[in-house]
């Protein structure tokens, strides 16, 4: 390899640095460092003539490594890297440091000391630059297809979006019919329109305007050319990598041929089986061959295999005019190769029978909002009549009980967020159709936070619906009166009310859909404590997951109303499209490398890797080594910090590069205080240092900063190395545990430092000389405080004596 020729570009940021730092001294110092081929001074190097000077030096062959001291390096290095790359040099042969926020400003009261620290920083950057290697760009092809898991309102809309954009879309639904929970809800707030209405796909030739909405069954949804729908289907396993997932799906038989069924219904007429209709909350019976409701999608009958008598009966087969029924259909395994996966599995109602005092499974007239919605639906089991399930008589007195299982630490501590609106909507619909109904809603807090939502609350009051502020303790059955009694205190009146009811409607909590945990296991995704899927970042990346190419939408992440589910669905579609559209993943090879000579048979790194990027592969019969999957590796280095055998290195943060930096940073002190080395993660830790400088907070110049990708990469031997090189105390500065940019890095680092302290004791080093700090960007003051604290601590402890020192 060519000898390193380092160009050092010193920006004084418009004299603001040269007023504090002695730039002549810096230039003289740098001049004498071996391999420095060029020194330039200017007011800025990240744009204009300054940047041109760098480019010219590269093009002229004067330099092959670039060190730039520039303010705001996190902004300027993007520009510099691009220009360097355009000039023909690998952009990873550049090191940019911040003499302003990391040196001149925080140490401005002691300019001489700051100048000495600046020398150390420059030396460190030069020594690192000499050891840098070019990093190549990797490309991995991706398939232009997607799998959407879940055919509810969110999944369907994501499917339409992606299909409209030209991707091959596979939508799978566990049930025989699409629509999910939304379809059962009957009508939606805040539009009061029906639940099966979706945006028309662009392939619908009869769509006249772009505002067209249509019922799913007439939307042409199933006729979208590049959309295939699999019902009765579930994901069994997923293999492969982002962009190339191989998904195995188990498709249960429908026993009715989709291409032949003409939905005449003769089969259901002759079917002798009556079985409770779970779609309608078991309020009626249906046949073993059935449609959920006439407007359902797909418009194909299905056989309930738990209820059907098959060959014993086969009356439907005889009567079917198109021979569409095939009782011999078998479960099939379907394999799909897709580039991306969108999880749209939704949520369901909490099983209210858990709340013993509400007697949901005991009293038939205690129902849930979803069950009431089935009664309200004209296609539902009662034809729109509100009845008492116990005797079928009309329900006149209706009491709603909010937060049934929500905001309850015994079941689900969270607010399910949509139940207030669902109850207001359902109560209003009932009152509208039955003006003499007496309706009360028992609530803890009414939450109507969306646009138009407060109107529902107003309207309900206008209609004469009563509100009782209190959560009932128990629902009793008064057999003499033939009524239910809801035992509640109205806290505003401080009065005990025994509310009589024909029907009690529980606003049941919303919990993750059946099979959520199993699917998370199959996909390798995390769940939150509430059991819903965990987003990659709730604030900024609400539809992404820690796995590239796998997205979440709708109620899979938390209960959502229809507008929010739509928003989420379109967002997930956009993210999936962005991932799929180029047909390839392009990334820098800033990945981990395994030294197979050292690696062997332990399982630390595959377990620790937050991205599942490391697997163990056999080399001989009884020997395994770790392999890094470069698509999955995100370059955090948690594996490096974990490996007990030093068998892993991370490109661009190799141990020799870090050692050179450390030794240089600690080679010059220039202050009267003990040297402190701070390993700062490139995310929150290093930016907290930036922000302390930007806010001109002061801390002493003996504190030296080394940037690492993640706190999790730091090894215990590197901490010992730092002490050996002259550090009297070591700080590890990482992200907050929950905010770690690499999921687990900060937490792993913290654990490791606790262990390291025990080890330090063994070596005769005071454990107080090591401390882990966790902070975010805006906590610059915390960094300055921590730096001062560690300096004082090291000073108090006196000079560190290492074993072997005389």
């Amino acid at each position, binding site marked *: 390899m060519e000898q390193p020729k380092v160009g050092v570009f010193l920006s004084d940021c418009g004299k603001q640095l040269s007023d504090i730092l002695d730039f002549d001294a810096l230039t003289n110092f740098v001049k004498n460092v071996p391999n420095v081929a060029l020194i330039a001074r200017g007011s800025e190097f990240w744009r204009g003539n300054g940047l041109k000077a760098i480019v010219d030096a590269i093009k002229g062959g004067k330099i092959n490594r670039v060190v730039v001291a520039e303010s705001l390096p996190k902004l300027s290095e993007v520009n510099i890297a691009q220009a360097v790359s355009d000039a023909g040099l690998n952009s990873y042969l550049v090191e940019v440091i911040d003499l302003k926020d990391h040196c001149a400003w925080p140490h401005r009261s002691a300019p001489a000391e700051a100048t000495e620290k600046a020398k150390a920083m420059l030396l460190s950057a030069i020594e690192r630059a000499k050891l840098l290697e070019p990093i190549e760009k990797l490309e991995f092809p991706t398939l232009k297809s997607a799998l959407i898991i879940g055919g509810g309102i969110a999944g369907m809309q994501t499917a339409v979006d992606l299909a409209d954009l030209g991707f091959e879309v596979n939508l799978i639904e566990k049930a025989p019919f699409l629509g999910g929970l939304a379809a059962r809800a009957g009508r939606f707030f805040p539009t009061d329109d029906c639940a099966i209405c979706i945006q028309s796909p662009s392939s619908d030739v009869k769509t006249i305007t772009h505002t067209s909405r249509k019922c799913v069954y007439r939307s042409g949804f199933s006729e979208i050319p590049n959309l295939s729908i699999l019902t009765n289907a579930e994901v069994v396993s997923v293999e492969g990598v982002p962009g190339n997932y191989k998904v195995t799906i188990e498709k249960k038989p429908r026993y009715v041929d989709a291409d032949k069924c003409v939905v005449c219904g003769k089969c259901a007429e002759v079917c002798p089986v009556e079985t409770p209709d779970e779609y309608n909350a078991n309020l009626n019976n249906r046949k073993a061959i059935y449609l959920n409701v006439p407007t359902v999608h797909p418009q194909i009958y299905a056989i309930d295999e738990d209820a059907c008598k098959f060959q014993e009966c086969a009356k439907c087969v005889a009567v079917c005019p198109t021979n569409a029924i095939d009782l011999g259909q078998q479960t099939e395994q379907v394999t799909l190769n897709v580039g991306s996966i969108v999880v749209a599995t939704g949520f369901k109602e909490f099983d209210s029978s858990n709340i013993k005092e509400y007697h949901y499974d005991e009293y038939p007239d205690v129902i849930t909002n979803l069950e009431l919605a089935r009664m309200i639906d004209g296609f539902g089991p009662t034809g729109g009549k509100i009845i008492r399930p116990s005797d079928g008589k009309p329900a006149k007195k209706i009491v709603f009980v909010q937060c049934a299982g929500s*905001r309850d*630490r015994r079941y689900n501590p969270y607010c399910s967020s949509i139940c207030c609106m669902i109850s207001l909507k359902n109560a209003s619909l009932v009152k509208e159709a039955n003006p003499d109904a007496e309706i009360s809603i028992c609530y*803890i*807090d009414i939450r109507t936070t969306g646009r138009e939502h407060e109107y529902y609350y107003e309207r309900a009051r206008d209609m004469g619906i009563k509100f009782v*502020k209190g959560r009932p303790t128990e629902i009793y059955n008064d057999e003499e009166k033939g009524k239910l009694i809801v035992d509640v205190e109205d*806290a505003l009146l401080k009065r005990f009310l025994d509310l009589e009811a024909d029907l009690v409607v529980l606003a049941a909590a919303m919990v993750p859909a059946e099979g959520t945990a199993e699917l998370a296991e199959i996909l390798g995704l995390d769940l939150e404590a509430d059991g819903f899927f965990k987003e990659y970042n709730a604030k900024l990346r609400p539809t992404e997951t820690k796995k590239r190419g796998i997205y979440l939408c709708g109620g899979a992440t938390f209960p959502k109303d229809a507008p929010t589910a739509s928003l989420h669905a379109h967002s997930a579609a956009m993210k999936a499209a962005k991932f799929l559209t180029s047909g390839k993943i392009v990334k820098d090879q800033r990945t981990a490398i395994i030294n197979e000579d050292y690696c062997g048979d332990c399982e630390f790194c595959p377990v620790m890797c937050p991205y599942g990027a490391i697997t163990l592969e056999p080399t001989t019969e009884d020997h395994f080594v770790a392999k890094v999957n470069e698509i999955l590796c995100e370059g955090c280095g948690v594996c490096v910090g974990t490996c007990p055998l030093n068998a892993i290195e991370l490109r661009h943060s190799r141990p020799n590069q870090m050692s050179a930096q450390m030794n240089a940073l600690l080679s010059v002190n220039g202050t009267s205080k003990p040297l402190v080395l701070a390993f700062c993660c490139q995310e929150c830790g290093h930016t907290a240092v930036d922000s302390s400088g930007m806010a001109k907070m002061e801390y002493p110049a003996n504190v030296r900063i080394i940037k690492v990708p993640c706190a999790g990469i730091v090894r215990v031997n590197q901490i010992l190395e730092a002490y050996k090189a002259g550090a009297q105390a070591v700080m590890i500065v990482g992200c907050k545990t929950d905010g770690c940019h690499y999921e687990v890095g900060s937490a792993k680092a913290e654990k490791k430092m606790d262990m390291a302290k025990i080890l330090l004791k063994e070596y005769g080093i005071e454990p107080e000389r090591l401390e882990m700090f966790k902070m975010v960007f805006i906590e610059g003051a915390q960094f300055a405080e921590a730096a001062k604290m560690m300096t004082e601590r090291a000073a108090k402890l006196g000079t560190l004596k290492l074993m072997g020192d005389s």
Partner: protein
Amino acid sequence: MPHHNTKENANMSFSEEVTHRHGGETLTACYQCGTCASSCPVARLDARFNPREIIKLSLLGEKQEILTGDAIWLCTSCFNCQERCPQDVEIADVIYALRNIALEAGNSPNIYADFASALIADGRIVAISKFVEKKREEYGLPPLKAVHVEALNTILSATGFTKPEKKEASQ
């Protein structure tokens, strides 16, 4: 009717005083749903007692009203409220904590002074009657053992147990 207080004149540190007590830790989780009140058999019969209100008054720092009133002494410790509280507020235990604070402030019903005297003298709050002894014999239960009063008193004084002062009958 208790008067309504604004935040300004409420002594907020009282809720901290309660949460730092054994039994009082869960006070601040309350969101006033009233499940406790509707669960309470006493509240139905006696308007002076309402567990939701006691918690609210504690949260707002209405120390005097709680400590000098009758309410906290009316709880029968049936624990219905505690069983059903959706926020896991240990309501009956909070009331115990409040009673302890009241007792230390010299505000306890005279019966507690009688209990304390009996405990110190005989090692029992309620003396064992002939009736009880006879019943035990009937059921084949062993006779109750005598309490080691001296040892008990050593424990009582070591734990700082104080006998509440009896108040003059004023009504």
